[in-house]
């Protein structure tokens, strides 16, 4: 659009011309404003001062590096110092960090200050060119590529084209198959089973128990007498045989699991609570919970049905279980129904009973997979 005033003469036979009053349609870019010199450009004293400041910052850097070296050799890692506003900290970490920090900051600040005060500050203009290559260059590119295709006879020999395409399409398969095939074992039904089903066979499966396992405390690994569980108490519980139980008669129970300890614990961990039987709700869930429990003692999987964090926060007054990761809340009085949060399913209940010595045992394994949902869990 023209930014110049119109000076064309208008002929009388031309009809109506819309006038612009001699005013351009848009403002024009006024160009770079006049350069303003800095103090250091005009006064040698100011330039000298800037020089001293830059040198001072570089000297600070040298001092910082010296501080680092002294601190490295003077303090061992156990030394502690109290620093106002921070507290007791590792002397070595503090001084090494401060020394290194000053050593680096001194160089950086010095260089930037130097650039800002003494280096040229008159702006330079560089022209841009369109990113696009010229038509000639683009045409040449097409010619070269087409020529390559022609000379190699690629277009004339469909057999080569087809087989090469096939080979290129398939060559990554071996790598892919190797990786995907060998990364890990198939899950089979192992996600649906826990150590409450049987003793681990070392390959993800379980050998059924001959006698139902006892519930033992975590981490002491002591069996729990039903009569010792008072109303309002909570136990972190595992199947016996997972942790070593020094007092057990059976050799396997004495030693605990040698292999896959965390994996089993991650599926089999259970929370045991005793409620006053009248605290359970009069709902099908509440009744089932009592039936699967023993005199108000109930056991639930501790692994959240959302993404598998341990549901570890038990509110004694409301009988709510809360998962600390995403705040799913389960109501123990109603069979651990989800009353809040992102989980959908209740925590699976472990059916318990007592053996002839009065100790709590798992009457049956979990009836469903514990932990987070997956496609084939049912």
């Amino acid at each position: 659009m023209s930014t110049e005033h119109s000076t064309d003469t208008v002929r009388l036979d031309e009809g109506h011309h819309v006038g612009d009053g001699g005013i351009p349609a848009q403002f024009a870019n006024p160009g770079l404003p006049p350069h303003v010199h800095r103090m250091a450009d005009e006064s040698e004293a100011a330039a000298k001062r800037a020089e001293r400041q830059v040198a001072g910052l570089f000297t600070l850097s040298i001092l910082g590096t010296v501080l680092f070296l002294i601190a490295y050799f003077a303090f061992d890692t156990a030394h502690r110092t109290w620093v106002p506003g921070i507290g007791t900290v590792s002397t070595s970490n503090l001084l090494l960090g401060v020394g290194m920090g000053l050593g680096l900051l001194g160089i950086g600040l010095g260089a930037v200050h130097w650039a800002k005060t003494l280096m040229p500050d008159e702006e330079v203009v560089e022209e841009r060119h369109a990113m696009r290559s010229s038509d000639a260059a683009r045409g040449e590119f097409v010619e070269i590529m087409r020529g390559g295709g022609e000379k190699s006879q690629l277009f004339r020999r469909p057999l080569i084209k087809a087989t090469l395409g096939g080979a290129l399409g398939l060559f990554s398969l071996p790598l892919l198959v190797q990786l995907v095939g060998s990364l890990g074992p198939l899950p089979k039904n192992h996600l649906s089973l826990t150590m409450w089903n049987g003793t681990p066979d070392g390959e993800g499966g379980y050998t059924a128990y001959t006698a139902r396992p006892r519930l033992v405390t975590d981490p002491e690994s002591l069996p729990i007498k039903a009569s010792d569980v008072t109303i309002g108490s909570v136990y972190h519980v595992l199947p016996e045989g997972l942790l070593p139980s020094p007092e057990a008669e059976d050799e396997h129970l004495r030693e605990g699991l040698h292999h896959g300890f965390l994996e089993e614990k991650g599926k089999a961990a259970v929370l045991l609570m005793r409620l006053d039987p009248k605290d359970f709700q009069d709902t099908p869930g509440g009744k089932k919970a009592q039936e699967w429990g023993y005199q108000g003692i109930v056991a639930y999987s501790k692994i959240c049905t959302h993404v598998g964090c341990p549901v570890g926060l038990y509110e004694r007054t409301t009988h709510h279980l809360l998962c600390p990761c995403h705040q799913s809340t389960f109501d123990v009085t109603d069979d651990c129904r989800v009353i809040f949060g992102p989980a959908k399913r209740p925590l699976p209940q472990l059916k318990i009973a007592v053996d002839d010595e009065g100790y709590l045992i798992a009457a049956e394994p979990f009836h469903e997979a514990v932990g987070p949902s997956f496609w084939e869990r049912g």
Partner: protein
Amino acid sequence: MSTTANDRPAMGLRTGDAPVSAPPSAGAKKLGGAVGWVDDRLGPAKGVNYLMKKVFPDHWSFMLGEIAMYSMIICLLTGVFLTFWFVPSAGHTVYDGSYVPLQGVGMSEAYASALNISFDIKGGLLIRQMHHWAALMFIVALSAHMLRVFFTGAFRKPRELNWIIGCLLSMLALVEGFAGYSLPDDLLSGTGLRAAEGFMQSAPVIGSYLAYAVFDGPFPGEAIIPRLYSVHVLLLPAILVGLFTAHIVMVAVQKHTQYPGPGRTNNNVVGFPVMPVYAAKAGGFFFIVFGFIALISAIVQINAIWVYGPYDPSPVTAGSQPDWYMLWADGALRLLPGWLEFSAFGYTLSLNVAIGALGLIPVVYGAMAAYPFLEAWVTGDKREHHLLDRPRNQPTRTAIGVAAIAFYLVLALAGSNDILAIKLHMSINDITYFFRAATFLLPIVAFWATRRICLSLQRADRNLVLHGRESGRIVQTAEGRFFEVHEPLDEYTRWKLVGFEGQEPLQLTAGTDAHGVASPAAGKDKLRARLSRLYFQDTVQPVTPAELEAAHHDGHAHEAIEGGSAAELEAGSSSGHH
């Protein structure tokens, strides 16, 4: 040795050797010799000269990407140090280092070695903390850099590819960060991995297979630590460095964008050359970022892994939270309601997990990567842009950006809903319900409010151009009337306010061809024209010289604040101020 007359002295010239002019000093001679030796063999002088003369524009916001770049380099440096002591193994060991509370405790070798770095290796804690702080700084800086690029429209043609690379870099940085803080195998990081395994299980159909493949069997297994380690120190850094190199090469090839201003056009770059100004400024800035990270790492503790103890799937970990950049994804998981899990025919589809854990990040980053193309489609703008937009001059884009920030912030805050509930003494249920609504409502409010604010700022700019600055000088006329003298803007200041393009929505072309047959693309065109109208709705045009002239000649009667049609000018004249 022969001594014929044809013998040359050792320093003599052979035929064809060019005599070299004398260097200014002995040092320069030495340096020149070394550089000349390299140039004789590789000839880099031409290319290096070009780079050293290259002009970069100056603005504080251009340093955000620089901070990201330097933080990444610091991560690479400190990371190499850490690999010398870190043992990426889930093998069992009993801790016997100098941290008394954990002595005799069974743990993985990874955790034991991380403790060893923190307590027994001199300077180890400093390097570990610098690595973590630099990683946080990397993601803060690259996020801020992305916001700058978005709000100034720097992603427009010809830089769409670099925007996509930037999106990839940003997304991979999140994964890299997660892989990194999962390595020490303390209780917190193990709980994070436990959740990650749950995320994988939620994948439709293949969930359990995916989880078993990644963890080589049931969680936690012994494979995940070494696998994460090779992803964290080899695979992702290689991709990050590769993409970053492409990113920076593209900046050099396309030349840096610049803010609009006097003397700056779409066809030039106004700024300072690399040598000496940017060599000193950018080089110095690397040291500043490095020094700053060293200083924070000296005085602010981060990720005190020794407090949490070794990983165990059973203990309580109240207040479990990921690093800040994962909060939004965690927040989405906290907000998604349980009824999104469906069971039918013996199969379970756990969308309450999958949407937040598997879908959110790819979908959001996909939308970001697609944005430049969507905007160009709606505005019909296919030209090259090297001048940045002031955010207010693109009200709709700015509003979209702020709406996205609002969405992100709601999710990130939801990721701390338990901490908020404790600190604010509020019910976590109420907070969560509020955030569920806010996820959808707040972005709409933010969009609307931002758009109005941008339009108001544009009108304020017009007002300033048309009527000048209030000088504070009150003048009494002969008839006794008072008015304040307005000083007109100088042309440089004015250019900053008027030097942008006026905008028009795309017009819908006839939906039928010459024979009256409906064009197959008619529906798409209609949508496009509609979106274009919405995008440019209420658009404010820059002041034209004619408008300024009119305002000067008829300052008291004519108060054209709004650009555009004559009707608007009329309306403006009755509601303007004096």
